[in-house]
């Protein structure tokens, strides 16, 4: 088990290293200066700035320096926001993103579970078809279309929830709901097919043959076994939420990481683009790793040699 962990962490580091390297050199290919106000920047100011950010050094030196700083958790300074470090920007921005992301995950997971479980139990009923249709629609309609509609109808027309900005809990709801649609749909579909599979398993018949009451059979044997693989969806879900935040945060003026990322892309703030890319990748790698561990923890059949008995 220890060996497995060491190996996994090794792979994670290699992956991260490759991402860092690729991102760094891709950024070198980007045209334009990352500095603000380049319109009126004089040559002298440019020299001063280049020296300040170490851009006057050869690329190899810059790269090694970047790696060195990265190891110490230093992602450099933003070009656009003078004096602010990328890490501090990420740390102030991650809160709102994490909050709406996790909230969307919770909303989506609960709704998805309920929909998925009921539609599997009422297989081939109107309800089943209805929730399958809902799930397909939820997966198919781009989240930004949905977010725009939500903002307009719930926020502006009905004035039930704040339209935008980041003030208090109520303003987290619309973005979370907009984000949770894909989660709900994905989870519902997944759960439904898992449930249907488990319902067809012999051990469910065994449980019934033992005289277990139907709801006990469903809860203890069916749902539990159907739920375990849901954990494996956390990786893809994390990605879809991450993707979602890029546009949802823009629409709802949420001061989150996704909004900062799209903003930095538009103004070519290298260091921030790089920092957030690395952060996202690291987060993703970490989530996948955690998912694997949780999965092993929930499913007794997994032993950490990567094979199931």
């Amino acid at each position, binding site marked *: 088990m220890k060996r497995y962990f060491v190996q996994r962490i090794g*792979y*994670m580091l*290699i*992956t*991260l290293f*490759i*991402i860092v390297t690729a*991102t760094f050199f*891709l950024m070198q*290919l*980007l045209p334009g200066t990352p500095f603000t106000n380049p319109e009126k920047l004089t040559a002298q100011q440019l020299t001063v700035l280049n020296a300040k950010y170490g851009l006057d050094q050869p690329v190899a030196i810059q790269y090694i320096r970047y790696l060195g700083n990265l190891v110490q958790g230093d992602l450099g300074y933003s070009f656009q926001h003078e004096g602010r470090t990328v890490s501090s920007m990420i740390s102030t921005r991650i809160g709102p993103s994490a909050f709406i992301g996790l909230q969307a995950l919770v909303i989506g997971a609960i709704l998805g579970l309920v929909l998925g479980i009921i539609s599997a139990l009422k297989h081939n009923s109107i309800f089943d078809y209805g929730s399958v249709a809902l799930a*397909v*629609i939820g*997966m*198919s*309609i*781009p989240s*930004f*279309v949905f977010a*725009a509609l939500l903002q*307009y109808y719930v926020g502006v027309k009905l004035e039930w929830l704040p339209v935008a900005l980041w003030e208090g809990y109520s303003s987290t709801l619309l973005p979370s709901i907009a984000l949770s649609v894909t989660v709900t749909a994905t989870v519902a579909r*997944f759960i439904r*097919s*898992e449930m249907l*599979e488990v319902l067809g398993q012999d051990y469910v018949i065994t449980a019934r043959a033992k005289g277990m009451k139907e709801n006990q059979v469903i809860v203890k044997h069916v749902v539990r076994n159907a739920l375990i693989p849901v954990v494996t969806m956390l990786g893809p879900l994390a*990605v879809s939420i*991450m*993707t979602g935040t*890029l*546009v949802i945060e*823009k629409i709802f003026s949420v001061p989150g990481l996704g909004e900062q990322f*799209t903003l930095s*892309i*538009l103004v*070519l703030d290298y260091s921030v*683009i790089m920092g957030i*890319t690395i952060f*996202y*990748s690291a987060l*993703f*790698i970490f989530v*996948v790793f955690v998912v694997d561990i949780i999965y092993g923890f929930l499913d007794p059949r997994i032993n950490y040699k990567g094979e199931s008995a």
Partner: protein
Amino acid sequence: MKEFDAKLPVHRDIQTQNDYIPDDIPSDLFVKAPLDQKKSEEISTPSMSFWQEAFQRLTKNKGAMISLVLLLLLIVMALIGPSMNEFTYREQNLAHSNMPPKVAGLEWMGFDGIDANGVNQYAERDVATNYWFGTDEFGRDLWTRVWKGTQISLFIALVAAALDLVIGVIYGGISSFYGGRVDNVMQRIIEVLMGIPNLIVIILFILVLEPGIRSIILAMIITGWVGMARVVRGQVLQLKGQEFVLASRTLGASNGRLIWKHLMPNVMGPVIVTVMFTIPTAIFFEAFLSFIGLGLQAPLASLGVLIEDGYKSMRYFPYKLIYPALVISIIMICFNLLADGLRDALDPKMKK
């Protein structure tokens, strides 16, 4: 119990027939008359090829069939829609800017040329031509642009999916077919690539490349093929151990023959399903990139570009958002349903 042949008559009330045993059975029936075995074999279900069977299963899936029809319809519209009226997707006519949709005969459906303030713009501006989906602020015909956009979005998605397929099949095939060290190295590469959130990579590449259709496709396949490669590899590995491949090998089949005659046909099922799921993802990515401002160059329009434009003025010109959003949603839904249907038909075991 899915494999009964629909063509043979089914005896619906067998039990009543069985119960009816007349006492006066004529004696002359008690004569030996065994059935010819060959004949009785014929009665049993006629054999169908895997593909025929899959096709039959697919045709029974209503959702998938409706989706297929809708998709074909949309593809046809994407091809002929832009030339169904006299406008081109780039032709501007500022005098006719922001015209609401109007279709003669369909006024009751909202295609009445009346804007959000209740003013009939056609009467107001004395416009004789009907714009079926309205016009944008440049006075460009949205009907033409929506179908042109559909064309471009579909093109991007199909090309990206096709290239994913080629790279994925080659990579996954080589990796699994040769196995051993080759497989090991190639797998490690895939593992690393899997660790990278692909949207981020796409964005970075779009930033570096010159914006345009080619860059978008390129950026999408940079990470897109990985999923396909994994599917192919998994499938080939599974097949490699099976008897018929071993048998063929023992009989001295060449590698090429083995791949093309035995492995490929069997890998096709999951591959097709994966492609079908790749296409909507690609359409979504394209729309997504347009939405965050990394899309196509004007005046080309994809559905994503149109949605982004429409989103900005959805309050006053809702029709600018509705039609492209509707088309993209229908395409996504149909591809997803069709992919689901294909998965069920081609490979009932394949989950997710």
